[in-house]
């Protein structure tokens, strides 16, 4: 199982029946694949759908039903559509339980940087700044280190922020970490790593939860 699948599988275990969940651009959209089909989750799509479903079979696409990435989607029983003001009223207004986003960097204060690398990457923030400002839980779902092995969980984000003090939990292929007023708390750890290795790959200091659980995918 690769790192991304581990991350998506762990995130998918967080939800309970009735939760309203927004899966962000990129890797987080794959979380839906691992949520048990018998759980009644409201998947929110920022382009104006409450009740998003799986990608349709080829030939069943509807050009007016897309996900936030712009690809063909479906709608579940009870779904509805609305304009972008309503869409972000739901998001900003505290009606979304979980937002799952990727990140370039997260820091010990729960700051999130995921929208720009000045001079290099200027995709734009899309809905990310609104999502993190209004959701009850903001989960940064990301690989523990960058491509060069540098820690992505920092003492202080160096990149421009998407939101200040917004992240509530970090899920990587190595660890599940809570963001608390006391600092970052390592709550779960992957079977194939150690606390020392996680500490070595994390720039910010980590408090260790008692008991420290093993991550389940």
């Amino acid at each position, binding site marked *: 199982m690769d790192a991304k699948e581990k991350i998506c599988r762990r995130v998918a275990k967080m939800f309970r029946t009735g939760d309203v969940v927004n899966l962000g651009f990129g890797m987080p959209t794959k979380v839906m694949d691992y949520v048990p089909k018998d759980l009644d989750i409201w998947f929110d*799509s*920022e*382009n*104006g*759908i409450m009740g998003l479903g799986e990608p349709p079979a080829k030939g069943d*696409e*509807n*050009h*007016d*039903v*897309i996900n936030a*990435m*712009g*690809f*063909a989607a479906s*709608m579940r029983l009870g779904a509805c*559509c*609305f*304009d*972008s*003001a309503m*869409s*972000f009223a739901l*998001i*900003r207004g505290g009606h979304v339980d979980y937002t799952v986003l990727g990140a370039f960097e997260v820091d010990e204060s729960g*700051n999130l940087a995921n929208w720009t690398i000045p*001079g290099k990457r*200027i*995709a*734009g*923030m*899309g*809905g*990310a*700044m*609104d999502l993190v*400002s*209004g959701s009850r839980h903001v989960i940064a779902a990301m690989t523990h280190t960058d491509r060069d092995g540098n820690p992505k969980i920092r003492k202080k984000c160096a990149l*421009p*922020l*998407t*939101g*200040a*003090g917004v992240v509530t939990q970090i899920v990587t292929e190595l660890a599940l970490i809570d963001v608390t007023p006391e600092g970052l708390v390592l709550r779960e750890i992957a079977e194939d790593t150690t606390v020392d290795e996680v500490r070595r790959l994390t720039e910010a200091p980590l408090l260790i939860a008692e008991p420290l659980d093993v991550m389940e995918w």
Partner: protein
Amino acid sequence: MFPSKVTTVEDAVRHLKTGMTLMSGGFQCCGIPETLLKAVSGTDAADLTVITLSTALKGRGTGILIHEGKVRKLYVSHIGSNTETVEKTLNGELECVFVPQGTLAERIRAGGSGLGGILTPTGLGTPIADGKEILTVNGKEYLLELPLHADIAFIHAWKADTMGNLAYHYSARNYNPLMAMAADFVIAEAETIVEAGELGPDEIETPACVVDVVVQGEPVRARWEV
């Protein structure tokens, strides 16, 4: 009986002149007024300021205007899927003002609703807050974001009646109903145009009184049909 607002695409886009501000609805390739955007290619309108959620893909949606070099300034939330917009922004050909998606919706809504601005927590503590006023209400901080208004709006509707009432379909609503309220001159392209009276009061989302002209749109092309 009100006269029909239906006109040709060529007549409609003649209203767009050099230097104007244009709002264009759509999310990626969904609900984009692409018939109108394509027709702008054939006019000498240039030096435009465009307000739109995204520039879709290269040569699609407002990406058509980017490709033709008709845009000077862009108010936009996401350009990542259009490499041409990214290149032109990085090399300085295009001035790109990034607006968070929900803030963009509310600024447009404010522009069409007679509001002097909106107060939002979105963007606090980020570069988006630079130079903007922060107000404290009931102990919570908010950014003051100002209204957006345009000279012309291009709207994509599912159905229009000849009077100019508009109905939308599924997630092709997005920014279309908001932009229809926020421009001096509103041009709607519809997938289907029906006679007055065929759209019922519960189906109509945008009232005819805010729509100036209606044109027949070409068949919609989804992203996966590129």
